[in-house]
């Protein structure tokens, strides 16, 4: 039996223990991430997890790779700067729905458009957990559990996959915290995709949205292969119920920046000498 030679999922966990509520979907994302790393045989020293602020953004500390726990909403910017400067690294940005679609919304759409070769895992529980359960950009209009919006936010939620597609994301998947093995596969494929890959994860919040335990009944795996046509994907993302999982869209598009060519002159002072 040869179980020792290859790193196992648990080998990718750090000694820091999660402070998430028992029942939180983010445990499952952490599990899936480490399973994906084990399957890919990822080198811990060459991998960086970058996050913003929020419950889900605590994740990098729980993984035994390099990590950066930044400020609210800016994880994607840190991740892109890092990847452009260090294309040799595997860079994964992650965070929650508030972090990614509200305060960091501009970075999200521009990351989709810019197509730097990183993976972005958005752990969407439709709520701000760290600040006591306020509505987020993906909360249903009539969700009235927060004192801040006692009658519900009253505005339509974002559809993250549609937003990503419209912004130019070349690769879009959706996973579910109730299915960490499938999520592990999606993350592994995302990491291997040579460009910006967006994994939208439905990750339940047991504390502020206990009704999300019902997601199990509505989540279904989309059997058809990933769409390659943007029109078809737009139609899917605008009309689906938001609970279909799998790689939903995969269009070939060259990542940015292109590989550098050797320069003839490296003298940066020549223009200044008269």
């Amino acid at each position, binding site marked *: 039996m040869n*179980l020792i030679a290859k790193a196992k*999922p648990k080998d990718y966990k750090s000694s820091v223990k999660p402070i998430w509520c028992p029942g939180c979907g983010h445990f499952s994302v952490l599990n899936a991430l480490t399973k994906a790393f084990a399957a890919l045989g990822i080198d811990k020293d060459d991998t960086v997890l970058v996050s913003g602020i929020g419950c889900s953004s605590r994740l990098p500390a729980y993984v035994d790779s390099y990590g950066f726990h930044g400020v609210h909403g800016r994880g994607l910017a840190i991740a892109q700067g890092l990847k452009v400067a260090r294309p040799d690294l595997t860079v994964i940005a992650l965070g929650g729905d508030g972090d990614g679609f509200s305060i960091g919304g501009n970075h999200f759409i521009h990351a989709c458009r810019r197509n730097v070769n990183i993976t972005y895992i958005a752990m969407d529980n439709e709520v701000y957990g760290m600040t006591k359960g306020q509505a987020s950009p993906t909360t249903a209009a009539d969700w009235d559990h927060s004192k801040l919006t006692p009658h519900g936010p009253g505005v339509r939620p974002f559809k993250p996959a549609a937003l990503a597609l419209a912004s130019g994301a070349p690769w879009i998947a959706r996973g579910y915290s109730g299915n960490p093995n499938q999520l592990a596969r999606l993350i592994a494929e995302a990491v291997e995709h040579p460009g910006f890959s967006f994994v939208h994860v439905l990750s339940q919040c047991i504390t502020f949205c206990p009704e999300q335990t019902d997601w199990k009944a509505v989540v279904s795996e989309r059997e058809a292969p990933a769409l390659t046509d943007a029109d078809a994907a737009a139609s899917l993302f605008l009309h689906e119920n938001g609970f279909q999982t799998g790689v939903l869209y995969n269009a070939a598009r060259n990542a940015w920046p292109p590989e550098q060519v050797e320069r003839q002159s490296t003298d940066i002072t020549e223009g200044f000498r008269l």
Partner: protein
Amino acid sequence: MSNQQLGDFLAHSVELESEARERYLELAQAMIAHHNTDVAGFFNRMAEESRLHLEEVAEIAQDIELPGLKAWEFGWPEEESPEAVSYEAVHYRMSLRQAMLLALENERAAEKFYRSFADASSDGETRHLAAQFSAEEASHAAQLEKMLGKLPPDREHHLEEDDQPHMPE
């Protein structure tokens, strides 16, 4: 000549038991962080049971080449391996009874998984081992049922609390 069915069975068994063990440890840790020591203690005991079973499987598998399956390539009847308690099925104020009921559910799922593996296999050794494992899971389940019988019933609203959640960040 390698026995493909046996290898496949053992790979599943190793994964099932090690995932069960890791999951129980992880959930125990989460319960400790939330000061539910009863349930944490129980999960740790269950992790120990799984470790013992894992050792047993590992010994059998010692000289057998196991297929290197990725996490999503195992043939589980449900989303996860049968004995891994779902991350989402727990609550920080859950009672020992609830924890045991969850564990019982998983022991039964494991029992059922092994039994169907035994039924489906055409290899004698595999059928024998799978049936043996199924019986072991059944005996764990019976023990749990016995323990459950001794526990007082839960108060109806024990998950409720008076304080509001905190704002850590």
